[in-house]
């Protein structure tokens, strides 16, 4: 009882410490896969206050800093998963077709155990999103997976603001089990495009209303009875998009609907941050490269619905080789554990080099999310978000040993194994306690 009280008090005490600053750490003698500046064997990384201060060989760490011995291990930047739905209390506002007013930021669940699961796969940052049930979903959020901390600690404010769009079978509810007597509009791809266009037109009109109001406000005679327009939280994100302050992240499969969405983006002047899944992007690699629009895709999860039937495992490599910025995502609390295996598949299907394959899960998603100045590679000045692997991360025989965010170790396999052992011990002791008396105490 006393032990638990102590634990509780310690735990509560830890919680009370405000705004945890980054930690200090020294990683010693590992094979550093920097992503942007080549590979350093026998390399060291000095981390002060959560930032990488020095990278090199035979560095001398200051006294008192905890040391991680990475001899024989591989050190890479923390993996970035640019499409997930973890750490949220809710995925889809599926009752209506347009729900741009919702913000995933309002429903972050920092206690979702999927966060820990992602850490065991070397993932340090996620772009966690609204689902694909709606043509226009909601505002997504970028988090660093600081397991044990608060949602505010995890929130990444300097990423692009992104709004989720979806095309194809999901928003048109093609795979619903029961077709209701009153199906929700739209039920076809043409309806999906039309409804998105309709909302942007509405947003244009709304923007106009506010422009007019702001103009008229300047006239002192009118101010007293001048009413501002009613704030429309649904249209405001679309206005932000047209003003360039928010980008679209659009879920798409078929090449045709992808091209239609690019047309829409030109019609209303908004930017596309990336296409999600985009299983037929290889068919329009030309267009995507010309428009400089990136894609965030699976390695090989396909053939689960009609529009995913022409998705080929060669796609990521093919697009990457032909001028398209490609990142690999998981869109799953299970697959997030093996993004490094998925990246390796592009070497088998498409012959990407090791360097290019690793980019797909580090610097590329960082660029797509607008955080490449802070994360995505091992460079001096960047955040110390690091994953340490037993074998090369692109080997099938590897596993993640430690996951570090801003210098703090959030996943440590060695510690985990110790805890498991202790649990086993306790279980054995409990079982032994029962047997001598031949029953429960």
């Amino acid at each position, binding site marked *: 009882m006393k032990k638990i009280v102590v634990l509780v008090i310690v735990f509560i005490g830890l919680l009370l410490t405000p705004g945890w600053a980054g930690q200090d750490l020294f990683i010693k003698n590992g094979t550093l896969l920097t992503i942007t500046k080549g590979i350093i064997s026998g390399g060291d990384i000095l981390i002060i206050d959560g930032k990488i201060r020095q990278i090199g060989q035979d560095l001398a760490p200051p006294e008192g800093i905890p040391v991680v011995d990475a001899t024989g291990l591989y050190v890479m930047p923390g993996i970035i998963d640019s499409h997930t739905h973890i750490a949220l209390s809710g995925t889809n506002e599926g009752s209506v077709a347009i729900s741009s007013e919702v913000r995933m930021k*309002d429903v972050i669940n920092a206690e979702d155990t999927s966060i820990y699961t992602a850490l065991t796969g070397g993932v340090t940052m996620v772009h966690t999103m609204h689902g694909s049930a709606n043509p226009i979903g909601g505002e997504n959020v970028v988090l660093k997976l600081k397991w044990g901390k608060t949602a505010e600690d995890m929130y990444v404010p300097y990423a692009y603001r992104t709004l989720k769009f979806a095309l194809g079978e999901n928003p048109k509810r093609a795979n619903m089990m029961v077709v209701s007597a009153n199906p929700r509009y739209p039920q076809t791809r043409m309806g999906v495009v039309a409804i998105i266009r309709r909302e942007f037109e509405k947003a244009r009109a709304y923007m106009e209303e506010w422009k007019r109001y702001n103009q008229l406000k300047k006239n002192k005679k009118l101010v007293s009875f001048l009413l501002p327009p009613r704030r429309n939280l649904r249209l405001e994100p679309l206005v932000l998009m047209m003003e360039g302050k928010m980008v679209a992240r659009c879920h798409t499969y078929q090449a045709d609907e992808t091209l239609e969405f690019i047309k829409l983006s030109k019609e209303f002047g908004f930017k596309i941050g990336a296409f999600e899944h985009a299983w037929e992007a290889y068919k329009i690699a030309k267009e995507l490269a010309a428009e400089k629009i990136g894609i965030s895709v699976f390695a090989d999860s396909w053939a689960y619905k009609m529009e995913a039937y022409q998705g080929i495992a060669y796609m990521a490599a093919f697009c990457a080789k032909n001028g398209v910025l490609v990142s690999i995502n998981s869109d799953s609390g299970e697959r997030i554990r093996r993004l490094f295996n998925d990246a390796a598949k592009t070497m088998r299907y498409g012959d990407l080099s090791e360097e290019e394959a690793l980019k797909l899960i580090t610097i590329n998603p960082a660029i797509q999310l607008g955080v490449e100045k802070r994360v995505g590679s091992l460079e001096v000045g960047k955040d110390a978000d690091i994953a340490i692997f037993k074998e090369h991360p692109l080997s099938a025989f590897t596993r993640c040993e430690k996951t570090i965010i801003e210098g703090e170790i959030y996943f440590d396999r060695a510690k985990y194994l110790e805890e498991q052992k202790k649990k086993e011990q306790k279980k054995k002791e409990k079982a032994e306690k029962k047997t001598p008396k031949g029953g429960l105490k």
Partner: protein
Amino acid sequence: MRVLKNYLIFFFVWGLIAAPLFGEVVKPTYALVGCRIHPVNGTPIDKGTIIIRNGKIEATGPAEKISIPEDAEVIDAKELEAYPGLIDAYTQYFLESTSPSTAQRQSRMMAASPPEERSWDKTGFLVVENLKFKKTTLDSLHRAGITTILVSPPQQIFAGLSALINLNGEKLPAMVLQDKVALHLYFTTARGSYPSSLMGTVALFRQSFYDAQHYDLQKKTFLRYPDKVSRPKYDAFLERLLPYVIEKKPVIFNCANLEDIKRAIRLIEEFDLNGYIAGANEAWRVIEWIKKARRPLLVSVDFKPPITSRYANMGEEIKEKAEKEIYPHNPAELQKEKISFALVSGKISKPGDFLKNVRLAVEAGLPAEEALKALTIIPARYFGVDSYLGSIEPGKIANLILTKGELFTADCQVRRVFVDGLSFEVKTAEAKSTGKAAAVNLSGKWKASLVSQMGTLESTWELTQEGNKVSGMIASEMGNWEISEGTLSGNKLTMVIMANIMGQDMELTFEGEASKDKIRGTISFAGGSAEMTATRIPDAR
């Protein structure tokens, strides 16, 4: 002449009978002698006397100083403790079940479903109009020493307006102390229609409050410049929101977990609401937010970790440990940081459990005096009734309890309860051991229909009940699903169903009420929720 005589006799007799109905009932005067008085607004008095007259506390003080009036019924209170009647400021007792029938719900669901269909708008729901008196509930509340309760409306996004009730045993609504106490809001979803997700609910709150502000501005501007501004269209919902958004009447947010508390505080700040935070059994984990916000807190003593909490998702052992050892420290932690709060029952449906859990909180470190305050003067202050409730002072309403043994100890027993000066002797619980016997056995075949925004699905259920565990199969055109865990406690049924929908294995949870031939409730799944009703198929003999 005879006629006149008859009239006179008639009126005389009628007068005798009717007088109590019209005149003021003359309440008896009491003198409680020899008890230890805990007045709450001062130090305890060891051997004291309390005089109750006309429903009010006339005098209170050490026995030597108080003279016992002649018309007083003397109650020997030696070795008893006297406390102000306890106030439970967040309950759902006496609420009449108001869920609409399946047919109504179905028709509503299948009708043209514009996104603005405001099924979540219960701002017009007045608790005071939906109360049903139940003697057993009254008795169990008295047994727990509770004399005043706030009844909050049932769960809904904009749930309605609560009422304060003084448990003086009279028929409702004569027990009502105050009507339209506060607007209650829940972080829940509108099943089957917008908003069907939590982020949708937050967006709805924000849009509604902005709309109320705009509506008010529009109305005011129109009244001043009727020639220049167009007349605002009447909106009943926004009208009902105005007192809370503009005039800053109290709004109570029901917060099931720590993120809800943050969500509530953010809304309170964005719209400058007079917001209260209720539930909050995880409040200690966001203590900095609460300190900064300085809003009234109605802390529930339900110690079950909420389902979003990591304690609930890391195995049974940790969950139980959290319930027994971590969550009970919540009130103590708040008190350490000098945060004031009221203690409420919240989800706990039995008054006896409420008191028990307050005791656990005291054992976990909450000082007993603070616990007492949190059940008396603080909730009274929160709801503006502290001028006549919440402590033992002359002039205040005679809501008192006499207990054997100090409150918040294991062997404390409430002996007598005074509400509005009326005395209730509390019978020591003989038959209260089993509470409501689960006399309902759900075994057998049922025919069910599930209504969702995607249509109606018929299914046949085969249930087996052993004790209070329910198991069985659900067969429908989508396949046969197994009920893996079902529990029936009283008339509340919860089930976990292993479904397989189009090759995808999913877990559905069902929560509802069950009676001998009818089960009604909600099925929740990853994308939303739906209503389900089942009727028993009688055995063909």
